[in-house]
């Protein structure tokens, strides 16, 4: 098993005729994802990569029974695209788009949560259940099917960590890039219970960044609710205060959101925190060996 996504999940690609949307639709199909169609207003009726293009998500859902979508539309139009997917009744929406204004996401966040929809992102690489399906932009080849869940705010850093795990022979059940913005649809505390309940996940690797207090709260959540082992890694030790480190969410302000505070919180929750990516993969390997 895996969480949120497998080979049976029917996926629509919003923005499929754009440069990124088209490229990644192809990649997803090649990986094994059940892409049932794409959406680009005004281009309904066309066919791309062997799948139909629809004018709206609603049309796409009616024709294909799609249950998920991935969004590759520009920031200006992305909030409306997310709401269109929500209105069409999708249960899983993955927003890859970066640069969406925070106040737009504030409205979208509460609306999709109220309706019980899982929104991953925005500003994220998406998610992958290795060997089954992927929704997003991550390179499929570095992954390997297995029993470790991965949760991360980052894109390429997640690839680096997955690659390190794969190189040690540690496969993954599902890897979720939750996004680097201050407000993202799904956080670690939403995903950890899913991994906890997934019979095919034995442990979770959690990658955090400076900024905010999500890691601190997640540490406390783990202490109270999660029995499976969690291994953590935090980036941003060297980030100066008040400077945004690329991700809108990665900023240390007023002394809060520092790497030190997050590491301390994880230590208090009994979650080992690795110093390097290699060490993260190594402690995960040793931990898993201990479970057997």
């Amino acid at each position: 098993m895996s969480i949120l996504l497998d080979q049976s999940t029917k996926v629509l690609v919003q923005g499929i005729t754009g440069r990124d949307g088209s490229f990644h639709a192809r990649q997803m199909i090649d990986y094994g994802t059940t892409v049932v169609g794409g959406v680009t207003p005004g281009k309904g009726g066309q066919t791309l990569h062997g799948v139909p293009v629809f004018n709206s998500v609603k049309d796409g859902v009616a024709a294909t029974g799609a249950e998920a979508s991935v969004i590759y539309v520009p920031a200006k139009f992305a909030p409306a695209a997310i709401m269109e997917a929500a209105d069409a009744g999708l249960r899983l929406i993955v927003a890859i788009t970066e640069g969406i204004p925070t106040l737009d996401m504030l409205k979208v966040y509460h609306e999709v949560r109220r309706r019980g929809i899982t929104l991953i992102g925005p500003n994220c690489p998406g998610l992958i259940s290795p060997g089954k399906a992927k929704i997003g932009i991550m390179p499929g080849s570095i992954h390997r099917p297995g029993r470790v869940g991965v949760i991360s705010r980052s894109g390429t850093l997640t690839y680096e960590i997955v690659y390190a795990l794969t190189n040690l022979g540690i496969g993954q059940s599902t890897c979720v890039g939750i996004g680097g913005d201050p407000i993202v649809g799904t956080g670690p505390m939403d995903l950890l219970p899913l991994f906890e309940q997934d019979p095919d996940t034995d442990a979770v690797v959690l990658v955090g960044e400076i900024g905010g207090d999500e890691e601190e709260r997640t540490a406390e959540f783990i202490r109270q609710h999660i029995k499976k082992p969690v291994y953590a890694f935090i980036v941003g030790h060297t980030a100066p205060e008040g400077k945004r480190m690329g991700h809108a969410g990665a900023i240390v302000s007023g002394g809060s959101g520092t790497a030190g505070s997050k590491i301390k919180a994880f230590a208090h929750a009994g979650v080992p925190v690795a110093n390097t990516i290699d060490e993260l993969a190594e402690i995960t390997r040793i931990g898993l060996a201990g479970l057997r």
Partner: protein
Amino acid sequence: MKIHEYQAKQLFKDAGIPVPAGALAETPEAAATIASELGGVVAVKAQVHVGGRGKAGGIKVVRSPEEARAAAQAIIGMDIKGSKVNKVWVEKGSSIAREAYLGITLDRSNRSILFIASAAGGIDIEEVAAHTPEKIIRFHTFDTTFPEAEARAAAGKLFEDEAHAGPALEIMRKLFDLFVVKDASLAEINPLVLTGEGQVVALDGKLNFDDNALFRQPDIEALRDMAEENPNEIEAKAKGLSFVQLEGDIGCMVNGAGLAMATMDMVKLYGGQPANFLDVGGSSNPEKVINAFKLILSSGTIKAVLINIFGGITRCDDIARGILESFKQIDISVPVVVRLTGTNAEEGLRLLEGSNLIPAQTFAEAVRKVILAAGGTVVEAHS
């Protein structure tokens, strides 16, 4: 994005929030003229983005145009925490009966807009929050609707007299509207004062804005003060790169913000000093690599450069072409360590064969090699 106090006060004024009368001066003479027009006691205030101006001597209260001239003379050109003062705001003095605090910001922890208010405002508000948290009133709104009832109750706690609580409530409403309409990330009035004449006035103000929303806030973008920004960071933004200047000597060129941070951390962990954060972004045309090299090399004393690329959307062969082109176009005299993994890595590495670059297979190897190339000593970090 940050703006100056005088710009925030102009936005407050436009929104109908009372502020003291004042004007901007770039010379001591102009400050004296403004002081003479305002008459009586005036405050001369350094306009820089950093906090703690008062404690650094950047704010002076004076009683005559001559004193205003002298104060401006002392303040203009002053260095406050690395920011040079170019302008002062000269403002009519206020008699202060009470100092309160009002702030509006995004609360990531519960995805809300958070109001923070306190009857104990002023420069020691952080102390108040740390030692007497019961004096801080906090309430939220989960959309962009003004939380009327909570705001009314809070205004009543800031100023017991309804004659003052009413105006305070209106200020809260207007500050919130400004926050929402202008896509602010922080809107703060500290202190919000009750004057001896019974007026409620914003005596100091701070507004920060959401960088992601600047595309629809051209009037806010126009308030950007280039003198307050690192020219390399501005240059980077224009070129589609994300760049932050640090103080070390090892230049870093990485794709992705998370990996860029991890690379800086690793350099430091192994005993080196990163010179910058630089994310070349997703789809990498060779031009971006050239611009990235120029930025890195123009910033301080670089001893070596580390290029760490994990190809996903980014193709390693594109990066390799960019590196080769950079060596043709720019004088790169420092050692460059390159580590390419992921999409088209083999092709990228093949392109780089025969060049002077120092190749590395893994992240850790790349970091060790760049520290040695910079003349440093590798500290083995494993616990």
